């Protein structure tokens, strides 16, 4: 099981990590603890040894004064039998062992450079006073044997010595001999190693306990929820969108589970909607196809039967039967017609609607998506907007698409999307758009092939200095982003005509009031005549019907984001079908559809963008004035 492996790996990693930390902590702690402990034990042993040697010295004192050697032997032997005492010996100044608890050592000489002596005799001149630390030595006879603590105790000359009757010791000698006691540190070593052993046992059991605990908790908190999540994703990928994860608590995985449930719910809704619209679309296509195909044979039946009906006026019996055929064929015709009506449902269904309400319901749809991406949504909606006639569903689709686009451009770094609505009043100049230009012979001049800022342009033929070419005029009144397919040298001498019938579009006896060049004109039904200066260097234009209407009121909706923006090269192309900056993610149809919807509502959509700073889409929908 792949999953189990992964989870065990997470658990194992945690256990190893915690184990290493535990070992480190326990070893550092034990190291210092053990050191302190063994120091304390040694000091204790030293003190004990020192006291012992003092006791021996004191108890042998009188015997020494009286030179009762047997007594001294007895005392040393008795004390030396104590199990912890390894050897007690006394040697004189010359290094000869005078007394020892081990009889075979008596009379032997001690090497002065040997362990017990070098402390005092390093400088050859023996020291006379030594601190307890310096008098102690710890050594091993063999590497395997237990440690030995030795303590020397110099026997100083004192008055009673030189005053004694034996007169063995002269007064000027400071040290008369040395008492050397060696103790086995077996017990101390045993205690220390016991302590070490206990510490290791403690560390191991702590690690085992922690590992079990971690393993158990990971199982409870990670493995089970993840297993449940994997089961859920498997269910969803198998197509079961109704699967929901049961309560998984409030931790991160619980949040993930809730977000997962929410996602599947939304997916299910979207799939249903998609399914529905797909079904409607294919049904519509089917209906339209059937209607079209069935109409021809039906026409045959209907024309012939109604024709026959007319010819058999003098045969009432036949007439009755034919009437039935005609009636029933007419009924079939109605059925076909209703099928076609159904197929036409995609035609906008406009009604009076409040744009703010549409914005709010669009936000509701995408709210979740935004909060997951940590995008802040700011709305500044003007209260009491006038209601306008729109297809609320289509307009909502526009807002949803634009908000989703904005969210996509923000990516994962978080940002702000702001939506505002307001009533604005604009003069038609620079706003009004030519949508159905025709020549006097009613040929359309609109060119869907060449679009200026996404809007079909007005195509006219121009002749200048014998050169012939086409000009695509900007359809927006007062904007002059024309496309010249011909180089016009002399603006005062240009012929402009209809590309289809060559009828001149130049107004007779009218010259441009600005530069006295010829003026071209065409009709934009139903909005009257449009006039403009033929000279490319002049920007005079007049659209009387529009100007007469005065300032027009629009509802302006702005949707801005703080996303990555659109480059200057891409900006003019974004409304083109199949143009996408999202790569594989998009079809490139979204903005084209949006443009179509807004255009269908006689509105305009514009975009402003700066790379790295964000993008603003500005939609203006006209408020219908009551005529």
């Amino acid at each position, binding site marked *: 099981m792949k999953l189990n492996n992964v989870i065990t790996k997470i658990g194992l990693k945690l256990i190893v990590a915690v184990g290493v930390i535990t070992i480190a902590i326990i070893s550092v702690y034990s190291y210092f603890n053990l050191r302190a402990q063994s120091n304390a034990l040694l000091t204790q042993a030293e003190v004990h040894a020192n006291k012992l040697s003092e006791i021996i010295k004191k108890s042998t004192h009188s015997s020494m004064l009286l030179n009762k050697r047997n007594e001294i032997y007895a005392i040393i032997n008795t004390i030396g039998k104590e199990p912890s005492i390894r050897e007690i010996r006394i040697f004189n100044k010359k290094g000869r062992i005078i007394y020892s608890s081990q009889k075979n050592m008596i009379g032997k000489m001690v090497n002065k450079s040997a362990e017990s002596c070098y402390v005092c005799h390093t400088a050859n001149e023996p020291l006379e006073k030594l601190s307890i630390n310096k008098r102690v030595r710890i050594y091993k006879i063999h590497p395997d044997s237990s440690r030995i603590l030795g303590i020397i105790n110099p026997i100083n000359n004192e008055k009673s010595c030189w005053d004694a009757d034996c007169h063995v010791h002269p007064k000027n000698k400071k040290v008369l001999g040395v008492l050397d006691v060696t103790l086995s540190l077996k017990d101390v070593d045993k205690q220390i190693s016991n302590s070490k052993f206990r510490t290791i046992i403690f560390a191991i059991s702590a690690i085992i306990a922690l590992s079990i605990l971690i393993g158990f908790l990971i199982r409870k908190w990670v493995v089970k929820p993840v297993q449940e999540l994997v089961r859920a994703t498997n269910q969803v990928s198998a197509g079961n969108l109704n699967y929901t994860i049961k309560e998984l608590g409030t931790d991160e995985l619980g949040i993930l589970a809730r977000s997962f449930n929410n996602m599947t719910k939304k997916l299910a809704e979207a799939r249903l909607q998609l399914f529905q619209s797909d079904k409607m679309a294919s049904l519509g296509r089917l209906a339209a196809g059937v209607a079209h195909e069935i109409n021809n044979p039906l026409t*045959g039946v209907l*024309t012939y039967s*109604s*024709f026959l009906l007319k*010819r058999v006026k003098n045969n009432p019996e036949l007439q009755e039967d034919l009437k039935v055929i005609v009636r029933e*064929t*007419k009924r079939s015709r109605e059925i076909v017609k209703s099928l076609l009506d159904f197929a036409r449902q995609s035609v906008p269904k406009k009604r009076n609607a409040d744009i703010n309400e549409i914005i709010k319901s669009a936000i509701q749809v995408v709210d979740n998506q935004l909060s997951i991406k940590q995008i802040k949504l700011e709305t500044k909606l003007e209260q009491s907007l006038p209601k306008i006639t729109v297809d609320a569903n289509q307009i909502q689709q526009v807002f949803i698409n634009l908000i989703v686009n904005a969210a996509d451009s923000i990516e994962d770094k978080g940002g702000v999307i702001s939506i505002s609505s307001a009533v604005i009043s604009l003069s038609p100049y620079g706003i009004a758009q030519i949508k159905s230009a025709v020549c006097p012979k009613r*040929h359309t001049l609109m060119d869907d092939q060449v679009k200026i800022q996404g809007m079909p342009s007005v195509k006219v033929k121009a002749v200048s200095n014998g050169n012939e070419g086409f000009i695509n005029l900007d359809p927006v009144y007062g904007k002059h982003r024309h496309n010249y397919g011909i180089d016009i040298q002399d603006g005062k001498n240009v012929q402009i005509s209809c590309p*289809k019938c060559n009828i001149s579009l130049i107004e007779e006896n009218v010259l441009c009031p600005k530069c006295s060049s010829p003026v071209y004109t065409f009709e934009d039904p139903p909005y009257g005549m449009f006039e403009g200066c033929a000279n490319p260097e002049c920007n005079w234009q007049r659209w009387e019907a529009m100007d007469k209407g005065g300032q027009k009121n629009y509802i302006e909706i702005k949707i801005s984001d703080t996303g990555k923006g659109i480059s200057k090269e891409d900006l003019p192309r974004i409304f083109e079908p199949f143009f996408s900056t999202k790569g594989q993610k998009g079809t490139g149809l979204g903005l084209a559809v949006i443009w179509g919807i807004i255009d269908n509502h006689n509105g305009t959509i514009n975009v402003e963008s700066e790379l790295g700073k964000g993008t603003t889409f500005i939609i203006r929908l006209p408020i219908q004035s009551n005529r």
Partner: protein
Amino acid sequence: MKEKEKILIIDDEKVILEAVSKIAAAEGWSADSASNAKDALTKIEHNNYSLILCDIMMPEMDGFQLLDELDTKQITIPVIMITGFSTVENAVKSLYKGAIDFIPKPFTFEELTSSISRGLKYREIQDKLNESKNSEESGSVFYVPCPSKYKRLGHISWMNLEYEGVAVIGVSDLYLETIKSITKIELMEIDDLIIQGNSCAKFETDDGLIHNCLAPISGRVIERNEKILSDPTLLEKDPYFEGWLYKIIPSDIEYDIKYLVPCSSDRL
């Protein structure tokens, strides 16, 4: 008796060609047929047709292209469009492009003959108009054009926005000139939905024909002219004012208006 009127029928469906030819012959017209627009164009050049009946959906060259072609060749034979794909847009668009009438398939014998008779009558008026222009006998009026602030659907019906989102619709005088005197008018009921390009009234004339009137815009009927029901001659006397048909609340005026011709353009 003058020469038989020649009619050209263009359709890619054989049964339609045969049926229409047969009916035309029975009604005393001579009928010619073409199964595609290219053939039709050569036939038009070599014959003198009074009327053309043309399908919209055809392979290669469709009805709209044929209309454009006739326009560039300055052929003024009236064209009646026929189509199986009877969407409102097709009907209205063909009228905007210069067709004089529109018959949705499938049609009955009566619908076909009434439309053809209107077309032939239209041709007659057109001829008279040209004649009077040539003889410089200007001043003779054959029909009254609609008032300039009105908008019209082809030469069939007109609409005018009256006040506060209410539109008045009616029949154009040229249409009335193409039919005989009306004996009976059949109107829709109040609250009915009128759809642009669909029939909104039926006129029965003394020659026994029933003529459908196509609505210029869509909307809901709020008032109908009861006066013309009792006195059909009122319609003929004053088609643009007293002889209105309905007052309606337009459902999508901005959209419908796209293919309407402003009557002001008639007075150039």
